[in-house]
């Protein structure tokens, strides 16, 4: 995943990379003021918000990570967490929060987090990920555009 992260960082505009090297504080400021901010967002569907409000307690939120693995090379991982780290980005909607670390965000920015309910399974899903080239049909694993 580290090698892939390095590759993913390379296509970014040079100025962005320089800003990133200045440290987390500068990165947060640059990120919030950048005209690209809108494109870097993660959206939550109504069912995702509703489910998160049901299951979270106190300061809990949903953490989304991307890790290596799965049949297409990368996979999404969801967990409940209460600690926000310096490199985390928080996306809030309707009182529900989804937190993504900056490395994972490079792979999911612009995507939608959904809570899908079928008879056989109910779970959180990442939908419409513009960074994903293709995924396996169950939706857990994906490969990235280069």
């Amino acid at each position: 995943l580290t090698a892939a992260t390095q590759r993913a960082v390379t296509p970014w505009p040079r100025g962005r990379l320089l800003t990133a090297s200045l440290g987390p504080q500068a990165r947060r400021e640059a990120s919030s003021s950048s005209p690209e901010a809108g494109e870097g967002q993660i959206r939550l569907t109504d069912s995702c918000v509703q489910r998160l409000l049901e299951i979270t307690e106190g300061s809990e939120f949903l953490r989304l990570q991307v890790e290596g693995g799965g049949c297409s090379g990368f996979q999404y991982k969801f967990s409940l967490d209460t600690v926000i780290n310096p490199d985390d980005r928080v996306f809030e909607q309707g009182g529900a929060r989804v937190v993504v670390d900056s490395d994972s965000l490079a792979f999911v920015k612009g995507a939608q987090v959904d809570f899908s309910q079928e008879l056989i399974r109910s779970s959180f899903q990442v939908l419409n990920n513009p960074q994903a080239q293709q995924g396996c049909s169950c939706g857990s694993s994906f490969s990235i555009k280069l």
Partner: protein
Amino acid sequence: VSKRKLQPTRAALTLTPSAVNKIKQLLKDKPEHVGVKVGVRTRGCNGLSYTLEYTKTKGDSDEEVIQDGVRVFIEKKAQLTLLGTEMDYVEDKLSSEFVFNNPNIKGTCGCGESFNI
């Protein structure tokens, strides 16, 4: 693949108590449906995935399993792959799902959803 000899004493499908309870809960609000039907479809990286749906009638070629008051129908295509399988229901905060513990499976993909026999 050699043809598997059917053993009369082997149940086609067994359900854990949590699976039974979940199916009862699902059907409670749907009096017109008599049970659920398990099927199999081609998808996923290992070839096959299970499907599950409500059903009002038993299909001509369906196999029927009745356990603790719930009915599960098995589509013809799924019957061979499901033979001897235990159907469970696993739940936590983030997700909940029916799980098929199938002794016939030779391989599954990493997330466990698709399999080959």
